């Protein structure tokens, strides 16, 4: 998958993104090994200080001189104009660890609705923090992580479903309120482009030059790839800039165009395998913390994969979420590889009863 992704990043950035991506992979593999060796159970005690550090880092880009703005969000930490990394990316792992530890501290019991709501409330703190950046996509990832951990932690499915339904209702409410506020000329909650993205999801022919344009071009790219694609770097949609953010958010569209259904199906297969591995790690963990951490990582991936691919084919609203191991982005790559390290750490320290039974 790393090879696949690197190949695509190299092609879509015309080679210019290769160095940074490879740096991300090298740093990421370093972290992976580090996390693998390190006993994940010890992180449990470090999760709160990590969270505080992470929160500080996330606020840092707002300090003048430390921030770097890209794609409408002030989400990069930079020193003297040199981009270092996006604090929100490692924050995902930190949140997983922190959140898993909170649930564990709750004795792993989410029996009453009150406990569920309390834990849910905690999950919303970083969500709001990210929303101020503003980075809707990342905040949604956090919600997915929280819901995944809560589910694995024993929360009742119907509570989760209710939460989801309420969440969607909230978004619809916000859009309606926004429209109403917009009509009366009062300040609005959502930015115009965010509104448009949501509305485009409902009516895909809307805003053909803006959000609708992205979706349309993405669908054209994927569709025109047909069975075997146009060949790497030969897709006209990608090559000729019809696709926006083709090395990051819309890299899947490029895969669809250049490598066709074959390439896309292979990638989906790889993801399925990755998620199966994550699931088996979660199931086979020696303790609840490991299970929850693995579940959190898995939820994060599931959400990112489904949302990213979903948005490129028009099955999900467009939000700026990258595709794990494929999209261009070193902070993102480092974080994902670190997550693999954590999973390996849990896997290595799993009980051996199955093996001993076998012997």
């Amino acid at each position: 998958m790393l090879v696949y992704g690197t190949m695509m990043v190299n092609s879509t950035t015309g080679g210019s993104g290769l160095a940074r991506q490879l740096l991300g992979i090298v740093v990421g593999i370093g972290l992976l090994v580090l996390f693998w060796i390190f006993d994940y159970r010890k992180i449990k005690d470090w999760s709160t200080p990590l969270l505080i550090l992470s929160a500080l880092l996330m606020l840092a880009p707002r300090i003048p001189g430390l921030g770097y703005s890209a794609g409408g969000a002030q989400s990069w930490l930079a020193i003297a104009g040199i981009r270092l990394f996006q604090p929100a990316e490692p924050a995902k792992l930190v949140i997983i660890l922190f959140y898993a530890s909170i649930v564990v501290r709750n004795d792993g019991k989410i029996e009453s609705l009150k406990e569920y709501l309390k834990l849910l409330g905690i999950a919303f703190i970083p969500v709001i923090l990210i929303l101020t950046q503003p980075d809707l996509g990342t905040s949604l990832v956090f919600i997915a992580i929280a819901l995944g951990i809560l589910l694995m932690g024993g929360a009742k499915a119907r509570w989760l479903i209710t939460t989801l339904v309420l969440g969607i209702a909230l978004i619809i409410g916000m859009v309606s309120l926004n429209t109403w506020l917009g009509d009366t000329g009062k300040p609005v909650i959502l930015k115009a482009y965010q509104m448009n993205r949501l509305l485009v999801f409902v009516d895909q022919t809307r805003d053909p030059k803006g959000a609708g344009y992205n979706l349309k071009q993405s669908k054209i790219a994927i569709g025109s790839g047909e069975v075997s694609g146009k060949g790497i770097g030969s897709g006209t949609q990608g090559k000729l800039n019809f696709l926006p953010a083709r090395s990051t958010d819309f890299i899947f569209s490029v895969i669809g165009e250049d490598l066709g259904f074959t390439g896309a199906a292979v990638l989906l297969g790889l993801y399925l395998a990755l998620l199966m591995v994550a699931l088996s790690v979660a199931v086979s963990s020696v303790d609840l913390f490991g299970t929850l951490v693995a579940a959190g990582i898995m939820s994060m991936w599931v959400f990112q994969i489904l949302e990213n691919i979903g948005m490129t084919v028009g099955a999900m609203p467009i939000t700026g979420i990258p595709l794990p191991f494929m999209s261009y982005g070193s902070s993102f790559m480092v974080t994902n590889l670190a997550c693999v390290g954590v999973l390996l750490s849990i896997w290595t320290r799993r009980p051996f009863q199955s093996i001993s039974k076998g012997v």
Partner: protein
Amino acid sequence: MLVFIVLLTRLWSMQIINGESYKKEAAQNSLREATTIAPRGRIFDCNGKVLVGNRSTMAVLAPTTIVNDTPLVLRLAKILGMTKQEVIDKATTKKEAALDLRVIAIDVPMKTVAYIEEHSTSFGGVEVQARAVRTYPNGSVAAHVLGYTGEISDTQLNSSTFKNYDPSDIVGKTGAESSFESVLQGVRGRRVLEVNAQGKIQTIVSETQPGSGQDIELTLDLKTQKVAEASLKKAIMRSRAAGNKAVAGSAVVMDVNTGAIVAMASYPTYNPEEFINGISTKTWKRFNSKSSSYPLTNRAIMSVYPPGSTFKAFTSLTGLNYGLINTATTFDCVGYWTGLGKTWGKWCWLHTGHGIQNLYSALINSCDTYFYNVGLRDYKTGKENQQKLARQFGFGKLTGIDLPSEARGRVPDAKWKAAWNANYPEYKKWLPGDSVNLAIGQGDLLVTPLQLVTAYSAIANGGTIYQPHVFKSALSSEGKTVITAKKKVTGKPSVSNSSVQTLQSNLRAVISQSASGPKLSNVGVPVSGKTGTAQKTEENDYAWFAAYAPSNNPKYAVVAMIEQGGGGGTYALPVVDDILVSLFK
């Protein structure tokens, strides 16, 4: 797991089931087709002199979207010397395909072109292209025969004739440009370009060169054409100076042995140059107003008139051919004819009377009385021989000339009159007076100058109607003749040779023996012909002269006509004289 299946299904439907249509959309995104306009074929006279040529010029084009950019529109208007509204009108013309650039101005000076190209950033989307446009080295000469070109109309685009045309194509609208459109029109060159999302051209995917249209040669002789036009105009001016209302006229020269049109003049005229950049509404209105006397009308083929005494040639033939008279038949002209009874008396043009007339003297003197008698005799047979013969000579029907919008004219008969006056029972009956009027080319008879010259050609050549034509040949790109017009016989009037010969010698005598009016001067060859002065209620007389020469071995027939010009011998004859002098000297 389930969601993965959903995603995979979605991909399957997009890439495998609907892949083809997405592929088309992707091509639409990135491929632009640009066409290069092929030059139209040129038009030459029968001696290879250029009548319509092409020259290369610069055109400024812009996308429709510039109308949203007022500062840009103002900049363009200023540099092109147009008003803001003119630029907007040109940019929003519906004529061209939605994506195509609109022609804002053509014939833009190189200085302006250079300025636009140097300041391309402040003229975003504006393009400069080389175009071939029509040139008319002889100005308005032969404008009616040549016709003009213009952007293809929506109606034309939807017709099967223009099946492969583009909405911005220039096509022949009238005249030869229209008749020979399929030969003159070239094949557009096509370029498929790959553009990026910003519309910037990346590569040329494929290219075909434009194929220019074929050149054609017309039967017109530029020299004779010029003489005909100049002389016609001079005659009209002279007639007007003499107090007539004369405003318009026509002159046609035809090769009596082939039907080839050597000259065809119509006055007033226009300059086809005015149509090059697309005609302005103001000019178009002027061209189609009564006060300008409709200069776009080709009066030689599109207008019909009573032929007056020029028709007496055919009445003579009727009389001789159907045995109503012979060369010895005489009638006494006392100036007032009472053949239909005293109440219905009719004047001869010479109120004092011509005295005893035979056919020979009647033609020379253009004696109305004589022909009234022939008309009355024909009426009494009840066979409408006059009409029969007139139709055989091509009156009342299209000559079939290879120019558009020809008028049919009219040969009145009992059947026609009954239908024409269907609502007025008291006027439905064909009366002896109708036959009598017809005999002197008056009444309800209407002819085009072209019909008359065609009919006189038949008299000259001994009785063959040739289809008149202006097309001589089409040339290959190497200048070789590839298609040549063949002469086409469209009629052989069943008249006896002796009748025709009698008429021929009488028409020769009309010129050589005529006592009244100026004679043809200096032609150098014997000429045969007949004057005509047709009357129309509440208008000045229509002046006619029809002739052919040389009388013994006829080559050309010439007809001149001036609307409300007065006497044919005085005003139309000099035009024919000038033309014949030019043809035979």
